[in-house]
């Protein structure tokens, strides 16, 4: 009885901690992005709120919450209201299957540092990342504005195209780890990370998650100089904020997935597992921001051609070659 109570308490604490850490990481990534981009462009970036702009996210939050929540007269009210929530929810739910550290022992209880180790963890991630399209699609459609609609159509076709390449690029990982469970995949990389064993899969996955996160060079759904704000043009206040937060949570999730699938998860010398995991995730986030500061936006036909004619065949070929090598090695 006491054991069960302790177990329940530990699970609750874990849930709250993960929720808090992911949300504050998303909030501070916004600040980090603005700061780093500013330094790359020889500017200062936000530096008024708090020492070095450290409480800027709080200021932004208060600003968004106190702004008017505007709904266009011709909008489809119900769908317009739930779309931002869907976008943030699908991003948050994904973290449930990501293992962020080795199993801990507290009060004679084994505490795995993952909220739920599903035996279909990888498929759960793929399912939620394909459902993320709904927030974007419904938000753009329900706004009843041509800019929003164009943004949604672009976003949807981009998500559909790159999801295939993403799904195919993780097939070799499953073949090498012989499991869909993310914990098992991390365990299989104890000696050598899959990024070194299978660099093509790593590169295809990296490019696809750039497209999935709708960031430069794949930020066509919200291309500011063509579509105003893209699919969230008509949104204001905290609903816009939810889209925005969802995007940054998604960034954390995708970085974590890259870490788990290809960079060996929490494995690393000297430092404890959780620290290694955080270091890897933050390094990938920094890479995302760096790319945003360096690359131009792709043209639409370039994006589609690259996805279907280069990434897809490469991913398929990679599955074939990996299968042949694994079969040859027995």
């Amino acid at each position: 009885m006491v054991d069960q109570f302790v177990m329940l308490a530990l699970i609750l604490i874990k849930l709250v901690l993960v929720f808090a850490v992911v949300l504050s990481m998303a909030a501070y990534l916004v600040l980090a992005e603005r700061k780093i981009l500013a330094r790359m462009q020889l500017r200062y970036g936000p530096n008024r709120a708090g020492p070095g702009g450290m409480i800027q996210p709080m200021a932004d939050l208060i600003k968004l919450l106190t702004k008017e929540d505007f709904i266009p007269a011709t909008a489809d009210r119900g769908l317009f209201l739930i779309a931002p929530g869907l976008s943030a929810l699908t991003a948050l739910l994904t973290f449930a299957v990501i293992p962020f550290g080795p199993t801990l022992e507290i009060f004679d209880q084994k505490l795995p540092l993952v909220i739920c180790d599903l035996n279909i963890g990888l498929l759960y991630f793929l399912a939620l990342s394909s459902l993320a399209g709904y927030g974007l699609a419904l938000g753009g459609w329900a706004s009843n504005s041509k800019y929003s609609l164009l943004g949604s159509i672009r976003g949807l076709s981009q998500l559909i195209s790159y999801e295939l390449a993403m799904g195919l690029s993780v097939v070799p990982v499953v073949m090498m780890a012989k499991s869909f469970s993310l914990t098992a995949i991390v365990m299989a990389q104890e000696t050598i990370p899959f990024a070194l064993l299978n660099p093509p899969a790593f590169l295809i996955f990296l490019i696809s998650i750039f497209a999935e996160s709708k960031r430069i060079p794949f930020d066509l759904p919200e291309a500011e100089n063509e579509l105003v704000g893209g699919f969230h043009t008509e949104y204001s206040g905290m609903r816009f904020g939810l889209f925005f937060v969802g995007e940054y949570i998604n960034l954390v999730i995708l970085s974590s997935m890259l870490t788990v699938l290809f960079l060996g998860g929490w494995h690393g010398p000297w430092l404890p597992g959780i620290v290694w995991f955080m270091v890897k995730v933050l390094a990938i986030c920094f890479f995302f921001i760096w790319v945003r500061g360096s690359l131009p936006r792709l043209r639409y036909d370039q994006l589609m051609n690259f996805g279907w004619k280069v990434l897809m065949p490469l991913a398929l070929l990679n599955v074939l070659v990996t299968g042949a090598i694994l079969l040859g090695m027995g």
Partner: protein
Amino acid sequence: MMATLTFYLAGAIAVIATALAITRSNPVHAVIYLVNSFFALALLFYLLGAPLLAAWELIIYAGAIMVLFLFIIMMLKLSPSSAEKGLVATRGQWVPVVLLAVALASCTMLLTGLDPATAQEAPRWHASPRDFGYALFKEYALAVEIASFQLLFAAVGAFYVGRPDKMRDEEDVV
């Protein structure tokens, strides 16, 4: 107990959402209800011991096919205000409706007419992703291959129908 309750709840959601999906005049709303029904269906699969099938239901039906439906609806420019008129069934469309209704009614009568005393309880088992994959690609490999060939034919056919006009003109000349 908890599982039984969830089962009936998910079943009720699936039935209600599907009923709503086929009666909505706004195509986007219909798609949303259908997605809800797929979620409930995935939950049913999970409760029946097939987690892999549940995941596929979400990835393929909710995540890919319905997103494509939504994409097409958006391409057709059915804005929220123009969708109010809705789709009205023509007389020809009532024929399949009636046929389907008769088929459904006869199935329901057959199922409810079974004597519970002679009915056998389905065996309880849990299909892990590994077992499911082995069954699919070892025992039923031929069926899987045939199905995938059909998809390949469909893809080639779609490409042929949707080829650019320029290619079509050249064909006519030849």
